[in-house]
């Protein structure tokens, strides 16, 4: 394996495009090094990008924040302004792994690794976050939801990689929340998860709702029907019940060592309900 620290994003893209063997990008390393240890992959080329400009920075931009692809969970969690604006996104990122893993794991890595159970992804989806992608032919912006395409797969082309993720400005009276279910209290992969982002009007009526669920389908899923079920009212029992039905209908999980189809489906609904009520409170709503 060759280990390379390219001098620029462009050089990195070219290097990755021209590599004939297996290449991996090293951000936090919390997935790729595990794969190396398990002999699941033996890359010929490991490209470390953490030193490149902006990769470890969080900068305010157009009312939102641009978060470098190598910003760790711990670093993000220490940023009060991002946390205040998108608490659900930050709590999702902060749930990845242990304190040790938090020092390294990144939201971009969590996205690119393509796990349907990635804790950072659902709330990024409901926040309508956008990934900035560098490729051999230049830069493009891609909505986060379009990056993962299936377990372990993403839509990036050869030579492409994420340099930052943009969290847009949040309207007034808005709030988000991410919850996951794990068997223990820490150190597990999500068995099911849900993120909810709500915008309210002055009276507390929901005007916009986005709900995403994780670990219940090949990719994180944005459930439009579930969001629609909350719009136009306060999240009372009837609205919540309709939303939960929509969430459950959108689940197409598998039974495996971590959970059953029934369990994943049921808990995804429960988590969406609980996350919606928390997000509603964060948005200033009162039931």
């Amino acid at each position: 394996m060759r280990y390379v620290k390219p001098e620029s994003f462009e050089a990195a893209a070219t290097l990755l495009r021209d590599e004939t063997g297996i290449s991996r990008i090293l951000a936090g390393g919390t997935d790729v090094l595990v794969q190396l240890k398990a002999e699941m992959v033996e890359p010929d080329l490991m490209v470390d990008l953490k030193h490149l400009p902006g990769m470890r920075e969080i900068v305010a931009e157009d009312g939102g924040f641009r978060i470098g692809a190598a910003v760790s969970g711990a670093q993000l969690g220490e940023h009060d302004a991002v946390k205040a604006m998108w608490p659900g996104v930050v709590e999702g990122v902060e749930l990845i792994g242990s304190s040790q893993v938090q020092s390294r794991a990144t939201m971009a890595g969590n996205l690119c690794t393509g796990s349907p159970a990635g804790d950072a992804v659902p709330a990024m989806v409901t926040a309508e976050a956008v990934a900035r992608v560098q490729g051999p032919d230049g830069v493009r912006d891609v909505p986060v939801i379009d990056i993962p395409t299936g377990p372990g797969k993403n839509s990036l082309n050869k030579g492409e990689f994420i340099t930052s993720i943009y969290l847009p400005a949040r309207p007034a009276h808005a709030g988000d929340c991410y919850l996951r279910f794990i068997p223990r209290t820490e150190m597990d992969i999500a068995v099911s998860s849900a993120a909810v982002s709500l915008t309210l009007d002055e009276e507390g009526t929901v005007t916009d709702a986005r709900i995403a669920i994780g670990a219940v389908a090949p990719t994180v899923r944005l459930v439009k029907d579930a969001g629609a079920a909350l719009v136009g009212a306060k999240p009372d029992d009837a609205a919540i019940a309709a939303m939960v039905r929509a969430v459950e209908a959108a689940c197409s999980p598998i039974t495996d060592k971590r959970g059953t189809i029934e369990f994943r489906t049921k808990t995804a609904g429960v988590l969406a309900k609980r996350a919606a009520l928390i997000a509603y409170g964060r948005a200033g709503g009162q039931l």
Partner: protein
Amino acid sequence: MKTIPVATTINGDETEFLCHADESLLDVLRDRLGLTGAKEGCGTGDCGACSVMMNGRLVCSCLVLGVETEGAEIETIEGMAKGDTLHPLQRVFLEEAALQCGICTPGILVAAKALLEKNPDPTDTEVRYWLAGNLCRCTGYDKIIKAVQTAAAEMRGA
């Protein structure tokens, strides 16, 4: 595969070593530098026994490549005591019997020190969640949590 020269600082000492590109920091510490205080319990970041500090952050050294530490500051359990004076956490762990077999102890001490530097007055729940990535199979964690709190109180008073 050729080895790569790396210059780093470990426990305050400038250290140079050669390693392969795919070698973990844990392997470098243990096999190349003789610093065997960090333990390999899993090699996949699930147990925390290999915890070290890298540039002021707590990491699993099994999830860091040796080559990534070029120019970095690394602190390991071997650097925790100053000469023959134990760090308060080390001393309290002994006094309060917060270890049985001791294999997880170096990682837990490094992690607990990192916590107290960030949060000198944590709640029990905060200590428990911070240390959730450090598995201990002997103690049931009870005496570990108590010892961290005793040391924290002492360090706040000092």
